[in-house]
């Protein structure tokens, strides 16, 4: 059992345990966001939404994204046996340099699917067609913001003589 769950699938870059934890972590955070965020806004107004940011995203960040030790360290904590210990549910690949996969992926897609599942079946295709450009704009904005933020690694500015 342990051997199966911790078997590293090379072409996938994941173990079965990592697949299970990632799917479960994505499910949990998305379900709570769908279920609670809107109701918190209804009950408390905009302050409820700002509370939800801390109580839902913050708390589920601890569940999904915390890493051992300090700092973004995709290798996780090197175990004496040579294994990798990672304590967040959403797996961050360590083979080569895998990019950061955020739980926002699950939340965005889950809210989209939620709207789709609640719609009447005949209306789904036009709804999808209408929403795709807006999703593209959100993704493009994220790429711009993330790439520009990533450029700080390239600036190489020497400050104060250090």
């Amino acid at each position, binding site marked *: 059992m342990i051997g199966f769950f911790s078997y590293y699938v090379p072409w996938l*870059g994941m173990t079965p345990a990592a*697949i299970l934890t*990632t*799917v479960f972590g*994505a*499910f949990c955070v998305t379900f709570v966001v*769908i*279920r609670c965020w809107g109701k918190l806004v209804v009950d408390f107004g905009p302050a409820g*939404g*700002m509370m939800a940011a*801390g109580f839902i995203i*913050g*708390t589920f*960040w601890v569940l999904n*994204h*915390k*890493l051992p030790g*300090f700092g*973004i360290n995709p290798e996780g904590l090197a175990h004496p046996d040579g294994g990798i210990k990672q304590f967040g549910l959403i*797996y961050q*690949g360590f083979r*080569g*340099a*895998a*990019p950061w*996969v*955020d*739980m*926002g*992926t*699950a*939340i*965005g*897609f*889950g809210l*989209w699917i*939620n*709207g*789709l*599942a609640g719609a009447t079946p005949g209306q789904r295709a036009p709804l*999808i067609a*209408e*929403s795709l*450009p*807006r999703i593209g*704009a*959100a993704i*493009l*904005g*994220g*790429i711009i*913001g*993330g*790439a520009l*933020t*990533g*450029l*700080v*690694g*390239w600036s190489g500015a020497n400050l104060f003589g250090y």
Partner: protein
Amino acid sequence: MARLATIIGGAICGALCFGIWPEMWKSYGILGGWLTAAIAISICWYMNHWSGLFDNPPGKLWVDQGWAVASAGLAWSVVRFHAQLLEALPVVACCLVGGAAAGWTAARIAQVETRTNLAAREKETL
């Protein structure tokens, strides 16, 4: 213009998440990560969804700022750490599966839901 607003909102949200989240985590550990959600996601949500910077017409499918955070994470690690984009695919697929399962289940639960929840009872008794 609505598209441009969405792009700007997504860029700011992505930059905030990946500009300060790692630093807060490095400085204050778990509490720093929790705090970053409370200070960054809250103001991003206020700007993007409460004040309506994101283009979300009523009655249409919801476009969340999570899309922007997701793509910002990928772009940030590709630019900053020279990450290989394709290696994220299995994890992204797992996230999409989990998110879709939650979205579908929550919609079904909301459809069959009876008014037994405490919030509805509270409103009825008032």
